[in-house]
């Protein structure tokens, strides 16, 4: 057992033998890169000049007034390409470049990671292929168009449930075949080691900035830090710099879909058992025969049956708490944030906002919380419109 690949009993490298040396190469290149000041300087250059960081820590005044506590929004929705995903993509694509790879592949659910990868590939002149479930292609047409405009090839994955889980399977299969000249850019805090560590490293800029920004305004640490959790990339980035600050409460918000009790949800933490999928051991939604169960959420980005291994560890060690909110609660919060603050959040991020409003009841007016607004809602307008019309949605 390779201890460093584990977070407690979670993580590891559950991949075929033919990928083990590839993972070793990626791990070595990654460790070397993040200790190379030139690499980190280049990464931060692009985060500033290309992505537009740092992103504001916005005091949501009307929301705070309504819920009687201080609510700060970490505005990852203001990043270039509309979400936090670009942070990690730039880190990984610079690594790919450093390793001499000319091609990149990626999986995508909502399309945000696919768009971010296609963007990075255009920026660095790399050939890009994005695997996307047929179902997701139908519900995220706008992002498919953006990826194609950016020069990426979007491969429709038609196996299993035709969503993110299957797109990831197909990306891993392809990677096993082409790893010699191709880098696989994983978008969530999942996959075999070192991917969960890489994603955390490149997303940790979220919490580094937020911590500093909160200090500037409040002169202290926040009481609560909150983020939505699908695979867990924005949340691990939002938690990263606060994990060692034991007085800060960390809350991850999963998707309860139509309600945990209906079975149609995406709450791996609430109901999953430890399992192995996509190269990692973590909490996983499974049926009684050990087959992976379909997740359900109105948000394509949270529609994932597993969760990153470090989150599983944070839950077991009780450092972080994981809760779930339903589609309906998320959509109500989405509309509320839109009307009160003039910010249309991604449906994913609206899950965190929904729980923040609920959790505020436990807080005083002088306490504060930071909510990661991981992405903007432009990509979701069709889903939102259909929902408001009572037409339901795909999946």
């Amino acid at each position, binding site marked *: *057992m*390779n201890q460093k690949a584990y977070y407690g009993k979670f993580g590891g490298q559950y*991949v075929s*033998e033919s990928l*083990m*040396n590839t993972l070793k190469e990626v791990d070595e290149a990654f460790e070397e890169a993040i200790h190379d000041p030139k690499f980190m300087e280049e990464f931060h250059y692009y985060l500033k000049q290309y992505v537009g960081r740092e992103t504001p820590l916005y005091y949501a005044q009307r929301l705070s007034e309504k819920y009687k506590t201080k609510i700060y929004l970490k505005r990852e929705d203001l990043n270039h390409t509309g979400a936090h995903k670009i942070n990690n993509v730039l880190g990984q694509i610079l690594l790919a470049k450093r390793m001499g790879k000319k091609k990149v592949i990626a999986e995508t659910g909502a399309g945000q990671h696919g768009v971010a990868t296609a963007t990075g590939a255009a920026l660095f002149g790399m050939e890009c292929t994005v695997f996307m479930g047929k179902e997701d292609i139908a519900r995220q047409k706008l992002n498919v168009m953006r990826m194609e405009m950016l020069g990426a090839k979007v491969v429709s994955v038609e196996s*299993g449930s035709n969503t993110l889980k299957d797109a990831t399977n197909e990306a891993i299969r392809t990677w096993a075949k082409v790893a010699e000249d191709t880098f696989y850019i994983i978008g969530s805090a999942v996959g075999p080691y070192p991917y969960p560590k890489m994603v955390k490293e490149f997303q940790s800029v979220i919490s580094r900035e937020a911590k500093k920004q909160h200090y500037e305004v409040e002169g202290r640490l926040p009481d609560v830090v909150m983020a939505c959790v699908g695979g867990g990339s924005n949340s691990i980035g939002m938690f990263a710099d606060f994990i060692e600050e034991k007085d800060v409460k960390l809350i991850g918000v999963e998707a309860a879909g139509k309600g945990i009790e209906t079975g149609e949800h995406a709450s791996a933490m609430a109901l999953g*058992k430890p*399992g192995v999928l996509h190269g990692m*051991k973590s909490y996983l939604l499974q049926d009684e025969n050990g087959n992976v169960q379909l997740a359900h959420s109105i948000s394509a980005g949270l529609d994932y049956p597993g969760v990153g291994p470090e989150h599983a560890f944070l839950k077991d060690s009780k450092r972080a708490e994981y809760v779930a909110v339903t589609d309906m609660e998320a959509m109500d919060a989405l509309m509320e944030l839109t009307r009160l603050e003039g910010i249309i959040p991604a449906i994913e991020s609206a899950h965190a906002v929904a729980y923040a409003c609920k959790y505020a009841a436990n807080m005083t007016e002088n306490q504060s919380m930071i909510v990661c607004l991981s992405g903007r809602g432009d990509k979701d307008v069709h889903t939102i419109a259909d929902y408001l019309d009572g037409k339901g949605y795909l999946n």
Partner: protein
Amino acid sequence: MNRIEQRLNQNISNGVKSFITYMTAGLPNYDTTKKLVKAQEEAGIDVIEIGVPFSDPIADGPVIQQASFEAIQNGATIDKTFAMMKELREENVNVPIVFMLYYNTILHYGPEEFAVQCKACGIDGLIVPDLPMEEQDELKTFLSDDTILIQLVSPVSNDRVDQILSDAKGFVYCVSSMGVTGQAADFHKEVKNYLSMIKSKSKIPVMMGFGIRDAKDVSPFISDIDGAIVGTHFIDLMRTSNYDSKVASDYVTKFKQDLNNTNK
């Protein structure tokens, strides 16, 4: 001695190359799987790999993915596959049988209980494609020589080969191409050097698999291997013949003959 070791070593002593097929359990139903196992045993198959269907088979190409999906739709489960194995052994089927499955199926079952069931149902070996040597301890603790964990090596295993072989039992499974199962004879460019390197290092039989359809696919490498494994092509053959036992046994007979004629 484990049935796999016994059979393959005996073949080596007799100067005979071995042949292994793969099929998905419960495709299209368990009665058919049983019938095909029996037909192949009679035709002289050396080892049969039985795939336990899983929802997310990341090491498999489209044919086995689809086979797995349909088997699950038709109700195949690990419990039923164990039950089928038990019946086969009670019906005096003695051919060595290996389960090919993904680690989640074992983990969900509980590795200890899984090992107990394997022994009770006469499963001689396990192939777990998403369980590289670093992750095998949890399972190996519970396995005995009755059920051995087959080691896989790939064309890019390089510096890992010695350690993998040091722990290998039964046979070493040489993956002959990169990626997934079923890429018709599209072998890795260095496949010949790789196979002869493995053959020179291995103390146990060396079997070549992935992308093989008939004996001539492996004839260029015949001196470096102790036999071949056919999965995807066999499933295609079964589907197109509507799972005809005669087609299965004819294929096995012919493959073994051709394999051993090439050899002479």
